[in-house]
């Protein structure tokens, strides 16, 4: 199937049990619930543009306000950029996992970015490049960063406005 955009081949699933097209080198994502978004891609800057657009498109249906959707897209991009720039320094190729979930019961949307590299604590003097984490925290009412030996997970949540 020809793709009309750059992310159509990444393994995006809009419907459970939908297109199961397996791409070479692409992890099969069987646990994605209907309406959720899940990608696992090489941690490379060039891949993030497509992921961001996919996420922005997904967020259109999330129930978030326009301002929160902007915040979600930017904060998620910053989390992914962090992984691309820092997690796999000195390694050939890393993997990045992006998941976006709309939790109706909890009334919130959560984006989780996971890498499997090394957590780099922000330097005391962040210099000119250390604006990513403060920006994520400024854009996100609820941010959780979990570094571990296996990698780092950044989880960001936004409340869904109550329906009329």
């Amino acid at each position, binding site marked *: 199937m020809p793709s009309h955009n750059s992310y159509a081949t990444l393994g995006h699933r809009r419907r459970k049990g939908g297109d199961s097209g397996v791409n070479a080198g692409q992890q099969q994502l069987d646990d994605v619930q209907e309406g959720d978004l899940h990608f696992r891609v090489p941690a490379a800057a060039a891949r993030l543009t497509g992921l961001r657009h996919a996420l922005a498109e997904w967020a259109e249906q999330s129930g978030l306000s326009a301002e929160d959707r902007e915040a979600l897209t*930017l904060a998620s991009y910053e989390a992914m950029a962090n992984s691309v720039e820092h997690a796999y320094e000195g390694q050939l190729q890393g993997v990045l996992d992006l998941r976006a979930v709309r939790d109706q019961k909890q009334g919130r949307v959560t984006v989780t970015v996971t890498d499997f590299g090394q957590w780099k604590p922000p330097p005391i003097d962040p210099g000119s490049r250390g604006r990513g984490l*403060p920006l994520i925290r*400024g854009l996100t009412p609820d941010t959780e960063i979990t570094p571990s030996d296996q990698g780092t997970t950044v989880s960001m949540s936004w409340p869904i406005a109550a329906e009329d």
Partner: protein
Amino acid sequence: MSSEAFREDSPGPRGFSIDVENHGETVVLSVVGEVDLVTAPVLEESISAALARRPDMVVVDLSEVGFLASVGMSILIGCNEQAGDTTRFRLVAAGASTFRPMELTGVADAISIYPTRDQALTED
């Protein structure tokens, strides 16, 4: 060279371009597209080249920028420092995709930001 334009046609469906106009001692850079890890180096190169000519003023118009990642903001801060006392460095930005993130990161405190290009060009 009085006018030049950089066009990057390949990356992404939305494209990215920076148009450079010289108005006497003022250089205006109009940025169109999304500033992220892929496009930010182009932004840095374009602004640095404009500052290297030491004009009185450099205005970077971000009105047509739909996405501004922190890498882009760091470049703007660096360019503001490069401008120093020689060149007045100003931004045009309004709205959720550019002004708000620059407010959150403190960039708006460090660099003069105007809601319109006219204001950036005419205010003292």
